[in-house]
């Protein structure tokens, strides 16, 4: 179980360690000023990382919290474990290209022919985050995760519309993949690291398991199903 109450200041730690990725962007003082408030207020993901670099993880945390902001309906995306989910997915079979036909030649194609890049999902997100941060630095002077909330929203909207210029593939394609993976993390069973405490299921009223409704389909016809959700772990 993740310890949601310990905020980690991954960025601050990075600054202290003098890691090149972060240090190249902005003076440490400015970065500290940008990062500290949100890190203090919003405890993020405390799970150890399997594959993501600190920079990539910070990107996914910031993206998840913009796509799924904290409010009365649920905690934020990263508080629900979306970045942990993504780390585990990209470290596993899916990230490595399971069920993806990867023989060449590769060619540019109309969108109706589906995914046609040589990259597996791990490589795709590595390249995509690098491109997103390049674009963010050109546009805002900072990496995406260091932007203020309003700028993060504007940045994601630019990517969604394909207006952010990425090298390699379109920002729209990157955004769609990011949104899809984040929503999977928010709504999947909690065994995968996201949807902590079944927050997303509670938000919509999805009861999860065991899903045996032979009697209930009659009993609850036209009525709200009022039982609390249960997940795979509750039956394991």
């Amino acid at each position: 179980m993740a310890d949601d109450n310990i905020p980690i200041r991954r960025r601050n730690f990075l600054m202290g360690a003098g890691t090149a990725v972060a240090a190249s962007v902005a003076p440490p003082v400015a970065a500290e000023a940008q990062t500290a408030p949100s890190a203090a207020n919003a405890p993020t993901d405390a799970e150890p990382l399997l594959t993501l670099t600190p920079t990539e993880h910070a990107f996914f945390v910031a993206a998840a919290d913009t796509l799924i902001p904290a409010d009365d309906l649920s905690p934020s995306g990263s508080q629900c474990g979306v970045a942990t989910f993504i780390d585990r997915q990209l470290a596993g079979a899916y990230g490595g290209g399971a069920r993806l036909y990867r023989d060449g030649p590769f060619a540019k194609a109309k969108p109706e022919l589906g995914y046609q890049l040589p990259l597996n999902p791990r490589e795709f997100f590595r390249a995509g985050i690098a491109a997103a941060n390049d674009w963010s630095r050109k546009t805002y002077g900072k990496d995406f995760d260091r932007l203020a909330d309003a700028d993060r929203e504007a940045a994601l909207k630019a990517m969604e519309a394909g207006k952010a210029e990425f090298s390699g593939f379109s920002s729209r394609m990157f955004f769609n993949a990011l949104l899809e993976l984040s929503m999977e993390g928010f709504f999947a069973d909690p065994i995968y690291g996201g949807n902590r405490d079944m927050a997303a299921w509670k938000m919509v009223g999805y009861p999860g398991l065991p899903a045996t409704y032979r009697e209930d389909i009659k009993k609850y016809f036209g009525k709200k199903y009022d039982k609390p959700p249960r997940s795979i772990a509750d039956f394991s």
Partner: protein
Amino acid sequence: MTITLKETDAVVIGVGWTGSILARELTKAGLHVVGLERGSKRMPGEDFTIPSVRDDLKYAVRQELFQDTQLETVSLRHSPAETALPIRRLGSFLPGTDLGGAGAHWNGMTWRWLPSDHKLRTHIIERYGKNAIPEDMTIEDLPVSYDELEPYYDKFEKLCGVSGKAGNLRGKIVDGGNVFEGPRQNEYPNPPLAKSMAGTIMDEASRRLGYHPFQAPSSNASEVYTNFEGQTLGACEYCGHCERFGCEANAKASPNVCILPALLADQKFELRTHAQVKELVYDKAARKVTAVRYVDTRSGEEYEQPAGIVILGAYVFNNVLLMLTAGIGEAYDYKTGKGAVGKNYCYQVSGNAVTVFFQDKEINPFMAAGAHGVLIDDFNGDNFDHGGLGFFGGAWIQAGPTNGRPIATRPVPPGTPRWGSDWKAATAKWYNHAFSIGASGCNYAHRENFLDLDPTYRDALGRPLIRMSYNFRDNDYKLANYVGGVLGRLAKAMNPTNMSTPSVKKGDYSVVPYQSTHNTGGTMTGADPKTSVVNRYLQSWDADNLFVMGASVFPQNASYNPTGVVGALAYWSANAITTQYLKSPGPLVHA
């Protein structure tokens, strides 16, 4: 080096619905049968159990039960002028693998074709004149009439324990059933499933409009049921994890539940898993397939299995691939119209949908079965007059969720953003208050929609991929947009709080969103060896000991989910083999 094995009476390629049925019928007739399944031995008691069977991410999203596209896929081009590219990730359709094939993870919609679907070309000419069919619409009759197939539809329905209500019982029209169906000799084996709130709303709205609603014919058993193989199905739990999942209640009919326990207990049947058939050994002079070569996918070793009878029961694409690579019959040439292998590839015209929102109604979409909707057939096939419409065919129209699994099912009203606070608020508000009305349309054959061998891309065994040349055509767009209008009328008649705009069909066929795993054609059945691949008994015109099963034999696709027709044709063919072919091996139809 290929290891040659001892000859067997019959070999079955692919152990899904058709392979299981044929193997069962042939062993009953006394034959020794070897079943070659490329995947593993998957059985519900071990593989489909709570809690892991309810894993939405694993099964519905990461596609645990489907063909592994890393090893095998097909390529697509929208017209012969384009270069095809491989479908790198499954989306539009989801072929199965492992024991039971896609029969383990289908939804259970179990239909018969309309009598007019059986003789489509003749029917349209009779009703609309001999010039009515456009030249490039290469539709044909199924050379088996509805009346001939009726006992075999009945048998497959009894195997599966289909739940439903007859709409035409020996000619008597029955309200509450599908009044457009052909006459059936017997009522469905089980009563319809419990109706959902969405289905009830659909029922009322369509009656108000003068249509004829009925509940889906469903291979999700409404009651505990024991079939003629002595196999018992459980009663459906309405779990909302049907399509893409196995069934832990054994309520969804599958080869694994309905037939394989009996088959596997029979000494005359030998199942070989991890046995992927690579090629057919064809003796053109003798007009026989003498053996099949397969690879043990655990070791890479190659085996040759000689057999007296060969049943080709793989999915559509592998059926066509094995015929083309062996050179059995003449490959289709779209320029001349000659040859039949690969011809008349068809799909399904789907994707039409309207979402309706009711702020004061609790829908509980998560309490659902795979085939659980309320439908109308008023705009299907030729159930309505096509005079002046400019297209043929139609669609079944359905309302009723199959699931409320929230990774994919979380409808929001039109205009809602896809993320952020407003998206959250709308998702929370409407999740339990919305459902979709959808349609599944006919797809009639077109001269330039076909299958052949890709010149560039290969599968893991080094064989060419099947190349699909396919796009929606004028008939499909007109049909879909006409049906879209009906969906809009139905939605309005439901008097919802809000509704989406009926979708308009435009643009090229896309492999990305799921549409249906109803790929058909490529080894079509027909009355003439020049224009078809198999005769009316599904026997190859060019190798009398080869019988081809499955939807690859369809001349075109009706609007209905194909499994009911596939199962009936399998029993029909099995009957011809056991009562005619075994007595006198040779062509069952003389050209």
